[in-house]
């Protein structure tokens, strides 16, 4: 990745953060923590890996993304709007009656959303079905899925994990957003994921691990995942819940939190400052 490319993706990530914080901050409440922790992977996917056409969201040959942790929808909505799937001003309709941008992803409402999610633990199975169906049709399209670490408590993920490796779904690339927090506390205190790499490896997946906020590392890992044959790939992203949002980062209560206008302005100003400094 060239320096220029890296800076462009980081700038895109910053834009996703800004629009997401503004959408949630304008509403006054939302799932800020888990939205912030997946910003970089969204930026990398929509910058250079996930094949998409904003003018034709139903393009059959496109790559697909299942955001299984559907409550992080606002971050994905920002990425989609910035990519041109729908106007940016839709973002400020988040969760308002009649909106096309509900708190949790809904494939029937939002252009660019490939699967309805929100009841945790179900997305990876759907991603398996998509990958299997694409293979039936002889397509080379990739299916990406993002699951949460708290969400990994749900047993259905592990049914899907066995299925994907049994069926050798090598065009399925999943990410675990390992931000170490869930609603009621730290994942290690609520239900420890233990050897998370070993678990996925034991289920027959190729496992990669990286800093989920490092766009270069994400780019390399996704490139490597795409060349993998005969097994699905799990990319475990070490992330920070609330990353890059001054009032949320490191706050254990950031899963779904109230946001004041002042908090929003401070966070947006900090991000704008970073942008000016070219960080």
């Amino acid at each position, binding site marked *: 990745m060239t320096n220029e490319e890296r800076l462009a993706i980081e700038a895109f990530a910053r834009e996703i953060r800004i629009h997401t914080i503004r959408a949630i901050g304008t509403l006054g409440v939302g799932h800020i923590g888990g939205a912030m922790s997946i910003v970089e992977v969204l930026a990398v996917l929509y910058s250079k890996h996930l094949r998409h056409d904003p003018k034709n969201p139903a393009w059959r040959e496109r790559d697909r993304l299942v955001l299984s942790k559907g409550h992080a929808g606002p971050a994905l909505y920002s990425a989609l709007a910035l990519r041109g799937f729908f106007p940016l001003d839709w973002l400020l309709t988040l969760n308002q009656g009649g909106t096309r941008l509900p708190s949790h992803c809904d494939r029937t409402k939002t252009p660019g959303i490939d699967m309805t999610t929100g009841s945790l*633990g179900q997305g990876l*199975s*759907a991603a398996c079905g*998509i*990958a299997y169906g694409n293979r039936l049709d002889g397509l080379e399209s990739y299916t990406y899925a993002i699951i949460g670490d708290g969400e990994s408590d749900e047993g*259905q993920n592990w049914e899907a994990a066995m299925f994907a490796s049994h069926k050798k779904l090598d065009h399925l690339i999943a990410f675990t957003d390992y931000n170490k927090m869930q609603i009621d506390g730290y994942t290690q205190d609520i239900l420890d994921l233990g050897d998370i790499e070993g678990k996925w490896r034991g289920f027959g997946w190729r496992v990669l691990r990286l800093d989920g906020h490092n766009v270069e590392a994400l780019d390399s890992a996704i490139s490597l995942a795409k060349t993998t044959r005969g097994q699905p790939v799990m990319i475990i992203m070490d992330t920070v819940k609330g990353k890059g949002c001054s009032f949320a980062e490191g706050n254990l209560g950031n899963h779904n939190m109230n946001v004041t206008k002042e908090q929003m302005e401070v966070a947006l100003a900090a991000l704008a400052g970073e942008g000016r400094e070219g960080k």
Partner: protein
Amino acid sequence: MRTVFINTLIETGKKDDRIVLIDADLGKAGATASFAQTFPERHINVGVAEANMIGVAAGLASVGKIPVAQTFGCFASRRVFDQFFISVAYAHLPVKLVGTDPGISAAFNGGTHMPFEDLGTMRLIPDLTIVEPSDPVSLAGLLPEVLAQQKPAYIRLYRKPLPVLYSEGEPFQIGKCKVLRQGGPNSVLLIALGGIMVQEALEAAKILEAQGISVTVIDVLTLKPIDAEGLLSAMKNARAVISCENHQIHGALGSAVAELMAEYRIYKPFGRIGIRDEFGQVGTEQWLKEHFKLDSRSIVEAATGLLQK
């Protein structure tokens, strides 16, 4: 019935390569081997993992397939209700879920496997199609209609053989009931759902006719959307109405009929044959039918009781 089901699926599958059959380690019970042999790539066995089965089906549907997911009715409803509700129905994906061994037909598998509530729970899902064919001809007729609909469906399937009720070529339509036996004016109206209950209703009709009581028997076939027009028109000419279902009387057919009668002001004697707030248990189908008062004798008693009131 399972042979008719799988043969119809194979025939439809030959014309439409979007059809994919998914089992959850009950392929032997469903006799799906012939489909798997005909279309090896389009048959998936997910193992004993019903939740994943529904999610995989949803994913397949989202890329244009018509997935048919099959398991026992107890698992198809109780075990994966949220997966079916969210990943399939709420997502508007045309997955066809088949729940076999309805109600007392679970017989020796007993209470754990005996779905008396699958239709009630499914009926609460908005815009879901729910059918329960009553004989081989109605199954072969309705299944292609259900597969052709661009929406999700629940097919309640009795696996064992059932007597033929309809002539070959009889047309079937989702949302339309059939009058199997037309009584005279002012007859007792038996509204039955599913093979077991339609057979019992027909048997009860014979007994009642022998006692000089005229009986009309309706085969409901589609629980949702219920054929309000067909049922109301029959109700208007009836002197008493009885719903007959191999299911709790709450939530499914008995409730649907009661709602229609109340909303359309059909104030006539009304009774419900079905399970009365009980769990299932082991036994032969015949023993269970008598135990839970689903048999023709119980229908006759209910009818004569209503007429004496």
